[in-house]
């Protein structure tokens, strides 16, 4: 591995680096060992503490955890599916040419973005007296739709001016140009940010714990309350590991898509955008774009 920040290490520097690495690993291992010993003294690693995961109670415990995972994913999925179209709509309103539509939308968006998500969930729960699921979903939808709108707006503004001008010049209405020329390109450009926001949305479902929605973390706590405080740590440990694993894998997928996208974008976006501009009278600029995008590399 080479970096501009430092020379390729020579034998002496490699030795130091090796010693440093070894020392670092030793320190980390030492801290871990202390933690493990302290935990072991409290009997955390006694087999009977972990028995809930394989003993006679195991089926119930795992089915509770399964329900928790499902309700977490359900809230995230429903929220994402509603938030995205709403985000597009808000974005359209936000970039509208009519100032009495644009300015109020801007105020609303600023308001939504400046709010803690959990406060919106509580608001929906108490003011509209909905169920917990609805509260979680509506809270997530409001916040994330606002973020999606901002991301898309940034995407549209990053397009060359000629795109819209060309669309208007061949006689498309403003709305038609937005929908069939600008949005498809904006979504493509902003795909990494959009997916990153989806990961955030998934993470934020855990806020449902606070408004009493029975997602994974809440299930864990119910379980620990029921089984007794001795089982809090094992239950929490397993629950947190599952949560982190789900999030990590979604992030990995996001990074993969981003890599693929950027490979295309590197050769594709600029020439393709000129081409879509020229061929905007054609039926489907997106399809053309995506067919020829990789080819231009």
């Amino acid at each position, binding site marked *: 591995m080479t970096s501009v920040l*430092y020379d390729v*290490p020579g034998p002496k520097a490699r030795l130091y680096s090796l010693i440093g690495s070894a020392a670092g690993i030793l320190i980390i291992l030492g801290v871990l060992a202390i933690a493990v010993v302290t935990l072991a003294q409290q009997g955390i690693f006694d087999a009977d503490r972990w028995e809930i995961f394989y003993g006679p109670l195991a089926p119930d415990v795992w089915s509770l955890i399964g329900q928790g995972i499902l309700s977490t994913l359900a809230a995230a999925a429903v929220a994402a599916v509603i938030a995205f179209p709403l985000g597009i709509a808000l974005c359209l309103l936000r970039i509208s040419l009519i100032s009495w539509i644009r300015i109020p939308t801007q105020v609303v968006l600023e308001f939504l973005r400046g709010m803690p998500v959990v406060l919106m969930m509580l*608001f929906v729960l108490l003011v509209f007296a909905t169920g917990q699921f609805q509260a979680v979903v509506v809270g997530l939808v409001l916040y994330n739709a606002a973020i999606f709108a901002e991301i898309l707006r940034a995407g549209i503004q990053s397009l060359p001016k000629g795109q819209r001008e060309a669309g208007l010049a061949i006689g498309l209405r403003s709305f038609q140009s937005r929908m069939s020329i600008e949005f498809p390109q904006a979504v493509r450009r902003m795909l990494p940010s959009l997916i990153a926001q989806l990961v955030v949305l998934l993470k934020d479902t855990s806020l449902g714990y606070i408004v009493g929605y029975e997602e994974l973390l809440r299930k864990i706590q119910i379980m620990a309350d029921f089984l007794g405080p001795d089982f809090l740590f094992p239950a929490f440990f397993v629950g947190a590991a599952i949560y982190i694993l789900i999030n990590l894998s979604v992030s990995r997928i996001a990074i993969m898509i981003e890599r693929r996208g950027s490979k295309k974008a590197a050769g594709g976006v600029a020439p393709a955008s000129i081409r879509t501009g020229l061929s905007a009278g054609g039926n489907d600029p997106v399809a053309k774009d995506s067919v020829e995008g990789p080819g231009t590399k």
Partner: protein
Amino acid sequence: MDAVIASLPEYWDGFLRTLYLSVISGIIALIVGTLLAAMRVSPVAALRGFSMFYVEVARNTPLTIIFFFAAIVLPRLGVKFEQFEVAAIIALSSYTAAFIAEAVRSGVNSVPVGQAEAARSVGMTFTQVLGFIVLPQAVRTVIPPLINILIALVKNSSVAGAFFVLELFGYGRQLSNDYGDQVLWILLGVAFFYLLITVPLGLLAHFVERKVAIAR
């Protein structure tokens, strides 16, 4: 409406505690995050690995879980805090530090390669290159995203309200219990105080962004 006016002292107390949590955790997170970013670009493999691992895990852990760990699991394991604020500050700063590390790292990457090359060719060491040449230039590009992270931090501090800290959100929950018939106004009041922090910060981010854009 009168419920809001009657509970202004609580609002004020909560507002100050939200500010307190955000400022302290923000400062800790800035320091730790910058250190993590420096580790990430350092020549020592163990430091790079640790920083990568930490950032990856912390960014993918829901904040609620970190809070749950700091405020409920840790005390069970014998780590007792005098006040729950300490648990909240630990949770918030360890979470935010990962995001700051990422922002600073991408800032470091945005500094033109020639800068580091020039610094190295006049004989500077790694720490000198980073400390005198790269980081000061990275700061410019990094400030707008950093402000956005801090805005998120202020909003995230609301999670502390669910873990025994009486900040704005915590008071909001308490007051909406006390004034069951005026929940709407109570919660709008809480929202107002959050906007009092986040909107000016957002405007600042916009302003700085424009400044930097012109300068570059």
